[in-house]
């Protein structure tokens, strides 16, 4: 009798946001109307690209310095963001590529299509990446992003947030999300946060201040753990060991 990885556990669509969420206006014409077609995961979803640590440069996870001129650093509150990537069974996910992007301390993104009057920081690019270690941990350094206005309602402001893109081991685990900061009064007002269906889901994206990881006289820390989809463990009694 052998223990084999089964397919991925179905995504809980009652927990994840729906596609059609009218208060977030852009979703109205970008949401499918037909039901999603359910299918079991196959090899194409159970495999996925895996990136070696060799793609990561020494500064890739340091947004304070990775775009800054020599001897310079980005302006803003210095922070460490760290956490563990696990699957739904609680098993750490090593080797997961995490890509992050964010606005600068004034809420301004470095992007050609961004027109906010907040100033660019010449020493801040706004992107970073890391790969989880053998215990599933990651961390990066950055500056705390500022809130920024967006043309949805007449006076909508995004909470301070950092975007996360995560690759697990299977393409079925592919996930993009946003991390918010504990105590931000914009969180309950935001139509994008509002696509989530429960306070529990809001909380799952809100990183607490982590004074135990803060570096005195240097940077405060926030902890953001991530959970990716899990797999069934299946006994294949009709197959010989090793298959």
């Amino acid at each position, binding site marked *: 009798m052998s223990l084999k990885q089964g397919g991925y556990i179905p995504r809980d669509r009652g927990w994840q946001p729906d596609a059609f*969420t009218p208060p977030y206006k852009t979703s109205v014409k970008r949401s499918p109307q037909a039901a999603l077609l359910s299918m079991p995961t196959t090899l194409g979803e159970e495999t996925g690209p895996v990136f070696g640590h060799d793609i990561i440069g020494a500064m890739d996870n340091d947004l304070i310095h990775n775009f800054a001129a020599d001897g310079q650093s980005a302006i803003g509150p210095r922070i460490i963001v760290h956490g563990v990537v696990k699957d739904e069974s609680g098993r750490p996910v090593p080797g997961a590529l995490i890509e992050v992007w964010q606005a600068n301390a004034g809420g301004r993104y470095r992007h050609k299509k961004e027109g906010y009057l907040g100033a660019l920081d010449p020493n801040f690019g706004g992107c970073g990446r890391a790969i989880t270690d053998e215990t599933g941990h990651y961390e990066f350094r950055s500056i705390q992003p500022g809130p920024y206005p967006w043309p949805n309602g007449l006076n909508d402001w995004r909470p301070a947030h950092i975007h996360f893109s995560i690759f697990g081991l299977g393409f079925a685990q592919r996930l993009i999300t946003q991390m918010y900061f504990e105590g931000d009064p914009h969180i309950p007002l935001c139509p994008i946060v509002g696509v989530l269906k429960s306070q529990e889901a809001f909380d799952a994206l809100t990183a607490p201040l982590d004074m135990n990881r803060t570096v005195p006289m240097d940077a405060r820390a926030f902890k953001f753990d991530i959970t990716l989809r899990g797999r069934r463990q299946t006994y294949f009694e009709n197959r010989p060991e090793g298959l």
Partner: protein
Amino acid sequence: MPQVLHNLRETPSQTAGPYVHIGCTPNFTGIDIYGGDLGKCMKTGPVKGQEITIKGTVFDGTGTPLRDAMIEIWQADAEGLFNSPEETRGDADPNFTGWGRSPGDMETGEFIFETVKPGAVPFPDGRLQAPHITFWVVARGINIGLHTRLYFEDEADANAADPILTRIEHQNRIPTLLAKSEGSGTYRFDIHLQGAGETIFFDI
């Protein structure tokens, strides 16, 4: 009270937003930190099989092209093997990553992948699936990434036996998953998020 199941809940998804390119294709938006964008090149040397080009555009429910989407694809090599540590059936073509990522053209939204035509891959019950490529689409306004599949219109026999395509109730929607040959190894695969001709999306 029964015992408590200590399963965790998947982290909730949020939209990638309009500036996804800063994090995922920074060179595309003028930020040169990493020395190149991941997923831009799927071939790292001479590859096995037929080299093909896939072009397409993502449209919203009004027929307007998305000019701020990010499209990722994942596929087997020409022999049906995945370049992944989870692949246990053999070694995939070492010069083919199987994974591509495109932000689309900033003005027209058209995405292009230079890749190879994938070989057939078995379904969990052993039947062969028709050659296909998994697509994943994220953008501003999309709260959770959309999975779909590209099949090839010139693989009619394999498509007619495909375990996924044959279970679709609305068979008249299957053409939304078929890439159209434009000759010279080029295929067009447009994605319609909503409305008439809406692409089939999967809950995998």
